[in-house]
């Protein structure tokens, strides 16, 4: 008897309806609502595209937080990449999303890498660091600048690339990589965190370990669960934080043990540590977070675009903080407002003509909400 019962329990756990029923069976929180933040564009995509907000109890507020690396890439790095792409001997290689991210440039100047490309700039979209290596070997007479924004999940393969023996001399890195947790620490240390529970990012935790998020539960006493990316895995994590809230016993729960361990991927961490240091770093429109950015170690100076083109970065630095007029991406990223609460959302800013990065990237909350049908400010119930 027991074996088939176990099997059916396992099958049940793969059905979103099982978790929805268990969530609905939990008591409503005493405070009236429970605000659950996620920090991964992949989580936000699943929540929105699977319509979880409509299926979940209305006292759960699912808040997209800082989960889009493209969205937090500082504006000065985009200015620098645009300038580099227009130099004769340079090709800028970057992940597809970055090509369209706008910065605040005067009308006659290119405001994105796509604009630069139309004016003769050389920009090549790539899907992986391996593509950059091929590009560098195919174009020995050019400098290949790999403009890489990303969280730990993207940073690890870049570290692997840089660790390869025989790295071509013409391959340079413009690194805009960030750690994810400092943004959450920043929110939690502010007067109003804006959330009562956290869904921690499964991909980041695969690399860095679930324990990286322990501070949320132990220092700040907020229910925390690491989640996978399918609707049922997310619902399982949502159930976990709700149950913690109901018991009033915040802790770190790993709801994605299929991929995530407490310590993470030691080899990846070792590779990253060998080539990168951690330093204070600016986040687009938000400001500098302590110890939130990766930078090339001095031994890699020969491959560091920031060292190779100091003038370009000095010029770009002067434009830090210049944001497109009316763009509220920074507050969307921090979960302070929902996408439709931005004045530009669906009016001046949509995927055809994005004003800010959140409407460009597939990881951006605005793009995700828009592509799910919340197309105007009055549509907010849709997402």
């Amino acid at each position, binding site marked *: 008897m027991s074996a088939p019962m176990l099997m059916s329990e396992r099958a049940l756990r793969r059905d*979103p*309806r099982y978790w*929805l029923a268990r969530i609905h069976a939990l008591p409503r929180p005493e405070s009236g609502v429970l605000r659950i933040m996620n920090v991964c*564009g*992949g989580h936000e*995509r699943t929540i*929105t*595209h*699977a*319509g*979880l*907000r*409509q*299926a979940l109890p209305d006292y759960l507020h699912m808040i997209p937080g800082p989960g889009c*690396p*493209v969205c937090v890439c500082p504006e000065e790095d985009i200015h620098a990449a645009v300038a580099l792409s227009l130099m004769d001997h340079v090709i800028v290689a970057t*992940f*597809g*999303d970055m*090509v369209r991210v706008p910065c605040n440039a005067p009308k006659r100047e290119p405001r994105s890498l796509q604009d630069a490309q139309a004016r003769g700039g050389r920009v090549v*979209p790539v*899907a*992986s660091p*391996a*593509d950059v290596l091929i590009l560098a070997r195919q174009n020995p007479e050019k400098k290949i600048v790999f403009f890489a*924004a*990303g*969280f730990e*999940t*993207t940073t690890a393969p870049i570290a692997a690339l840089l660790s390869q023996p025989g790295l071509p001399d013409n391959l340079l890195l413009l690194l805009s990589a960030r750690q994810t947790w400092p943004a959450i620490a920043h929110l939690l240390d502010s007067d109003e965190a804006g959330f009562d529970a956290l869904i921690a990012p499964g*991909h980041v935790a695969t690399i860095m370990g679930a324990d990286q998020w322990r501070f949320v539960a132990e220092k700040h006493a907020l229910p925390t669960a690491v989640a996978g*990316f399918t*609707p049922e895995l997310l619902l399982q994590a949502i159930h976990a934080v709700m149950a913690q809230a109901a018991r009033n016993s915040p802790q770190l729960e790993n709801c994605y043990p299929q991929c995530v361990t407490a310590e993470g991927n030691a080899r990846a961490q070792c590779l990253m540590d060998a080539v990168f240091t951690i330093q204070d770093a600016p986040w687009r429109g938000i400001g500098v977070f302590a110890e939130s950015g990766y930078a090339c170690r001095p031994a890699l100076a020969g491959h560091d675009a920031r060292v190779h083109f100091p003038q370009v970065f000095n010029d770009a630095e002067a434009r830090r903080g210049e944001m497109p007029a009316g763009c509220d991406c920074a507050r969307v990223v921090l979960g302070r407002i929902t996408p439709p609460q931005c004045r530009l959302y669906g009016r001046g800013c949509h*995927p*055809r003509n994005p004003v800010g990065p959140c409407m460009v*990237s*597939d*990881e951006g909350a605005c793009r995700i909400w*828009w*592509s*799910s*049908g919340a*197309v105007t400010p009055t549509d907010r119930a*849709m*997402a």
Partner: protein
Amino acid sequence: MTNPVIGTATGHDEFITLAHGNGGRIMRRLIETVFVRHLGNPWLSPLSDAAILPNRLESDHDLVFTSDGVTVQPLFFPGGNIGSLAVHGTINDLAVSGAKPLYLSVNTFLEEGLPLAQLQQIIASMAEAARACDVHVVTGDTKVLPRGLCGGIYFGISGIGVRPRGLTLGSDQIQAGDAVLVSGPVGDHGIAVLLAREQFGLSGTLESDSASVLPLTQAVLDLPGLRFMRDPTRGGLATVLHEIALATGLGIQLMAEQIPIRGSVQSVCDMLGYDPLYLACEGRVVAIVAAREADEALRLWQDLPQGREARRIGTVVPDHRRVLIKNEWGGERTLQELEDDPLPRIC
């Protein structure tokens, strides 16, 4: 027998050169040993300026005429190549219009440097696809472009077919309450081509669905409740449904769990951030059928080898003008119009 074009003896002619488009002897040899060799028939083979065709038009039929441009990278992919794809694409445009295709014209744009062996293979596939559908390539033209000006080979292809007079098929026939049917899994072609590009370090056994849909369209043509058919190519299923919503002012309500999607297609999409509902198919049909005949249409499709996985995936509704998709646990979202070429996401 030594092929005079491939020229194994001298090795001169292993690649397309500008001379293959010069109008002279070398070009004539190319046409004879590649195009006429594979595609030859009583109307093409005289190589006259225009094909003189027998009138196969029955008195109670209308002519149906379509035209298509075909480019794909890479030229060869699991399940087909640009030659078979070109024929299937044009035949399918005629088929979903309710027509039986009869004749094709093929304009070929060759890039200097294209290996002749590849051209042979592409035109042989084209001929095989046409033969399988009882369609004849009756006229054509060949141009050679300098290296760098075209991705190996492009086709401009037109097709003529006939269909019964009085057949009323079109978006203006669609009514609220009609059923939405799809003839098989969506997104196979898009993902097969993506994998063939080997850009993402992914590989797999997935084949393109590139095929003629003529058996599918002919099977349901006699149903009085058949309103509309379309093959969801570029932009995929979601784009066809958008066009319907736009043309009719009606909405489409889809049931997510009913839409057939292969596990491998969904996995690649999950990894790269694509939505299979927006990926190209090259051998599927979307049909709008009166609800009372939906089961019959589905049975007719499922009886065919290419329609075994056909499903009823949704309903035409009067209460909105969107394409909405609802899953089995009550979540709902709008499928937006495709904005730009989907790019792989970065983490």
